[in-house]
């Protein structure tokens, strides 16, 4: 009996340690970046663009703008496709007798799953080969966000599917039994009920765009100017951290930018948590 409890205490000690270490890692990474980064953050830091070549002077204004553009444009491409695909896969696919369509659905599912596993550098390669070179979009927000959209479409499809699936099937049956057709049911009942879930998916995708570096490294060009059209190149905050770290000696600036990035991610996570906890509360 005593031995059983001793074993348990030993095991639990290890688990506590694991939990503590995990938190310490987080605290250390984030803390270090904040401690090193905060001193460099001022209003100027946000309102001026990078300048001065290798000196790493200036702030991050243009990179914030670029990041924002990237989020908007990428989501504009990916959201309708992703949500639409998810709707088809969850709401329609199970209800087709047509053999061809069923095959297509299997293929589509495979596509989504494969896409989700593709490493981002391959999206980069692909974006570089197709959008930058073959389609001649050059290093531009357009090229980068098309490649980025490929990255987040599976994320949106998955989270949206999850959200749609978590809508009780009773809602659908209830609506169908009242004489509504599929689309009416989806539009009026299922989508509103899944809205929060879908929006966390979109937010999550925005987070992916904010943090992504590898794809944009080979598609966005890295110009630190404020982009003024879809065809402009640019530099997201994450890319800026990379440039600062790898090209210049401005590690302090890199840290400040990283701190801003991490801060942004924290805010996004909090928002997602808020939304999901509201879903859970329902």
């Amino acid at each position, binding site marked *: 009996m005593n031995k059983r409890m001793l074993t348990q205490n030993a095991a639990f000690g290890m688990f506590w340690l694991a939990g503590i270490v995990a938190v310490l890692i987080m605290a250390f990474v984030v803390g270090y970046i904040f401690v090193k980064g905060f001193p460099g953050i001022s209003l100027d830091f946000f309102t001026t663009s990078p300048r001065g070549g290798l000196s790493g002077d200036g702030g991050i204004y243009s990179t914030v703008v670029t990041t924002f553009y990237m989020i908007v444009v990428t989501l504009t491409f990916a959201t309708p496709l992703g949500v639409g695909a998810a709707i088809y896969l969850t709401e329609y696919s*199970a*209800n*087709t*007798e047509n053999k061809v369509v069923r095959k297509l659905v299997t293929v589509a599912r495979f596509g989504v799953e494969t896409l989700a596993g593709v490493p981002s550098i391959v999206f980069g390669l692909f974006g570089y080969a197709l959008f930058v070179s073959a389609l001649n979009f050059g290093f531009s927000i357009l090229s980068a966000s098309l490649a980025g959209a490929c990255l987040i479409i599976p994320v949106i499809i998955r989270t949206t599917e999850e959200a749609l699936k978590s809508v*009780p099937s*009773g*809602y659908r*049956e*209830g*609506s*169908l*039994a*009242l*004489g*509504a*057709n599929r689309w*009416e049911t989806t539009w*009026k*009942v299922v989508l*509103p*009920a899944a809205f929060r879930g879908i929006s966390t998916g979109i937010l999550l995708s925005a987070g992916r765009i904010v943090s992504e570096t590898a794809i944009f490294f080979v598609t966005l060009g890295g110009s630190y100017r404020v982009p003024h059209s879809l065809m402009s190149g640019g530099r997201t905050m994450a890319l800026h951290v990379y440039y600062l770290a790898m090209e210049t000696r401005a590690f302090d600036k890199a840290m400040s930018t990283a701190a801003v990035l991490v801060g942004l991610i924290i805010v996004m996570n909090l928002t997602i948590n808020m939304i999901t906890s509201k879903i859970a509360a*329902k």
Partner: protein
Amino acid sequence: METEVTRMQAEDYSLFYGQFKALNKINIKIPANRVTAFIGPSGCGKSTFLRSFNRMNDLIPSVTTTGTVYLDGKDVGKQDVVELRRKVGMVFQRPNPFPKSIFDNVAYGPRLHGTKNKSDLAVLVEKSLRRSALWDEVKDDLQKSGMSLSGGQQQRLCIARAIAVNPEVILMDEPASALDPVATLKIEELMNELKNKYTIAIVTHNMQQAGRVSDYTAFMLTDENRSGNLIEFGATKQIFTTPSDSRTEDYISGRFG
């Protein structure tokens, strides 16, 4: 029985899930303005049969059928499914109000079917809620979410929602199995009142419930091929006191197996 008006009818109705014959040549006449209960062991096809009345089985791609189901003498398979489902309402096992206000829940069906006028809708919603015996409990806050109601209230809301499109028949698949005994009795009482205006078909696992609520009882059972057959159909009183088939007796007296 002979004197009853038939509202729905199945004639040599068989249903297949792919190769599997789930219902085997069912013949039955569901009398109008009565509560007809379907009882039988799990998997005997009660739900499947019930869902044939409003063609909910159409949603399952593998389903094929032979024979005919009639509503008021007309083959349901040849009717517009949207219109059919308006006429044949359905209430499910778990209360499934939409995550909308009470008002919007009830108004959902009428809006679909073209009632847009606000005051018409208000009248309709009130009438439906009164009829489902929920009005007094919710009239003070129709904008409250339907989900915030208790289980029993939710189920009555679902009944109101079904009523709001002015159906002729209401199908209920174990409508009280997720409710506690008190809420269950309320639903049962409600059925008793609704049958004045509607024809009600209910699936239940609970023999006692069938006894309490129904005027007619249909007993189903699977045969050696696991297909569901209608074993006996008759007035509930008769089924519960002098069933004519020994399998019915075994089942209702709990000796089945």
